[in-house]
């Protein structure tokens, strides 16, 4: 490690540098990318921020090493785990004399059998609460837990412990404080709640410490995990994946550059740069390419055969609606029905899916998909709008329930649209088994993908948003399976 002068040289407790380094190491292992330069920044920051001011210490570290809300979340957890001892130690040594004396007394009293004086502790907590001193409250919360832990009262359930400690300290909100010396000043409800939050956090951290691992904290990092498909739908997980995808769409939209094909010359800049060559425009300057803004038509199967994937598809639709202005969505079972307006009006996903299932207007007589009819209706209603900028995305399993696939109609749709993609919620292995007629449609698609994992979704998003042709030639995926 680069030689970083121990910033705390003067008062810094020995080993603090190592602590900070180990902490950064910990963060890295949790997936936060920290460069050496960032660690140096952290040390520089800590040179001018007092070590023993806990809040400042933490904020300084956070601002130099955690550079996104997600990183910050991980930072909080790791910080709690890591600096529990270190900062407490520092605080003990450098807090002003009076308080440290009191604390020391309390701490020393701890190991002896008489335990910590709860009465006195309660008083201190009151003082801290009244002063609104976050650091002190935090320290006291720790002491309180310590004190009650020694009396063998730790139940292991955070909520129970919390109440017990609060009662033990004689902390009650506002009036009605009948305990002992009747004239205790009332505590503000909000302030007390703040102290309780501290307590709760400390208790949780105690549990984490005991179990030696972090609570499940990094949902966004686990994107590769396959989406829950069958049974209980984990809506939250799907949503997180889609939220990530949304972000990606925003970035990817501006990505395609490098190729000079089809760019227009920027006359002004060309003239300007021509001066270097005496007025002869040797180097052409081009206008930056505008990101492709596709018009998207999404057809989404919501029949029973894809019911487990329908929620996933709907949330994909939901996310797409936020990212593309020109997006029209349709749901279909036997017939097709446009639901664009529902997405525009309803922001809440749950409500939206309720509305689609209730008033989506999908004539659902048998509950069986009729692809032939769907294509016909889509052609009649919408195909006039399809143009060279349109992308049609079909989300469905291509299971026709024995009805004719009407691939000629689908071919017409594909022909009018610039690009046509098919996302199938079934693994490729199952395509064309049973009543699945995927092979009938594949020849007309620019790409057909299995899509039951966020990973698949990402691949697909890359292709659509970047405007690149699909590299892996999904069209080649023909036959191979028994029809």
């Amino acid at each position, binding site marked *: 490690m680069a030689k970083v002068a121990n910033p705390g040289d003067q008062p810094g407790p020995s080993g603090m540098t190592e602590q900070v380094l180990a902490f950064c190491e910990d963060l890295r292992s949790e997936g936060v990318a920290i460069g050496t330069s*960032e660690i140096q920044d952290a040390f520089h920051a800590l040179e001018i921020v007092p070590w023993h001011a806990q809040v400042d210490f933490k904020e300084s570290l956070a601002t130099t090493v955690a550079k*996104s809300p997600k990183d910050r979340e991980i930072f909080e957890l790791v910080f709690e785990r890591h600096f529990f001892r270190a900062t407490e130690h520092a605080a003990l040594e450098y807090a002003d004399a009076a308080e440290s004396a009191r604390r020391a007394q309390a701490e020393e009293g701890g190991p002896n059998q008489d335990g910590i004086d709860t009465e006195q502790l309660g008083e201190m907590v009151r003082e801290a609460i009244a002063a609104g001193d976050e650091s002190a409250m935090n320290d006291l919360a720790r002491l309180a837990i310590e004190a009650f832990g020694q009396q063998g009262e730790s139940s292991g359930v955070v909520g129970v412990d919390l109440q017990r400690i609060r009662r033990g300290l004689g902390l009650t909100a506002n009036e009605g404080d009948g305990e002992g010396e009747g004239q205790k000043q009332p505590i503000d409800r909000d302030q007390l709640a703040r102290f309780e939050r501290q307590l709760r956090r400390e208790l949780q951290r105690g549990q984490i410490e005991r179990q030696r691992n972090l609570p499940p904290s990094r949902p966004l990092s686990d994107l590769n995990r396959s989406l829950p498909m069958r049974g209980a739908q984990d809506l939250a997980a799907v949503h997180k994946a889609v939220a990530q995808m949304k972000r990606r769409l925003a970035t990817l939209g501006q990505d395609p550059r490098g190729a000079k094909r089809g760019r227009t010359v920027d006359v002004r800049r060309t003239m300007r740069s021509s001066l270097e060559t005496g007025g002869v425009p040797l180097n052409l300057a081009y206008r930056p390419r505008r990101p492709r803004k596709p018009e998207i038509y999404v057809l989404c199967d919501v029949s029973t055969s894809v019911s487990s994937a329908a929620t996933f598809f709907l949330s994909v639709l939901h996310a797409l609606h936020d990212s593309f202005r020109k997006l029209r969505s349709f749901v279909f079972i036997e017939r097709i029905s446009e639901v664009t307006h529902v997405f*525009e009006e309803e922001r809440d996903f749950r409500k939206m899916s309720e509305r689609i299932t209730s008033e989506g207007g999908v004539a659902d007589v048998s509950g069986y998909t009729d692809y032939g009819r769907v294509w016909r209706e889509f052609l009649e209603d919408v195909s006039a709008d399809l143009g060279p900028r349109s992308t049609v995305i079909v989300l469905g399993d291509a299971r026709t329930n024995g009805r004719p696939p009407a691939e000629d109609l689908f071919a017409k749709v594909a022909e009018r649209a610039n690009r046509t993609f098919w996302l199938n919620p079934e693994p490729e292995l199952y395509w064309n088994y049973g009543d699945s007629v995927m092979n009938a449609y594949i020849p007309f698609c620019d790409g057909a993908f299995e899509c039951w994992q966020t990973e698949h979704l990402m691949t697909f998003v890359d292709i659509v948003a970047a405007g690149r042709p699909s590299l892996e030639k999904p069209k080649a995926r023909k036959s191979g399976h028994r029809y």
Partner: protein
Amino acid sequence: MATTVSADPETPEAVAAALREARYLADDSTALIAFLAQRLGKPILVEGPAGVGKTELAKALSRATGRELVRLQCYEGLDEAKALYEWNYRKQLLQIQAVASTAGEGDKQAVDMGEIFTEDFLLERPLMRAIANPEPVVLLIDEIDKTDQEFEAMLLELLSDFQISIPEMGRIEAKTHPIVLLTSNNSRELTEALKRRCLYLWLDYPDSEREIEIIRLHAPEIDQALAARLVEIVDMIRDLDLKKPPSIAESIDWARTLILLGADDIDGKIFRESLSIIIKHRTDLDLVAERIGPRLGRSDKSEGNPGRQGK
């Protein structure tokens, strides 16, 4: 660092106080990071939802430190000619012609390329101006997420070394150390390289107490109870899933509107009439009118000081 303005602040508290003086109420971490930025000479990357005071922070810092504010508003397609510098080619052309006409036939060589690539022919754009300014400035690079990645890469030299390389002239180094703020609405992920060079500050909607304070600071005529009520309603609205939740600036606008209307409480009627001040989307309007409106309607006049009602 020759400064005529106030020297580096001593403590985060001093920064907070100076910002307060400049009519900006910073919370602890904001003040601390602003303090660190000045002491360490690092740029701050400010992220957060729209309208929480990211840009305002830069303005306040400029007022608090007495430095000039140089602002670069980013947009799609912004390039270095508009952000850094550009050669003043008309002037260069004229110079070439002038030299060519005065010089005799013999010495065409007089027009040396070097002569037209000097500072006289340079058009300064915001970033260059911030660097070359003899007085220290506050540089605000607003909505960096709107630009493309190449532009970010171009900023790297500026942000880490405070210098700009001009191929024809060499390096221009900062004469003074600017305070740099970059803001982003998080519409896309910024590159790691850029983030690594910055201190990171996440600004979120303030808690109600602070927001009341902010409103009272900017609309001093409003009385405490009304401000509290207003913030409470705005909080409720932010809890809804809106396309665009009301920002702090909009809360302030609303407070001023209420003062103009002479309202002393927000009842259903006033709420409906002034709703468009804080909600700027038709579907949002419907949603808010439907969810929040009735609650206010019920409570008007019946209770003196309606408490927070269940959500």
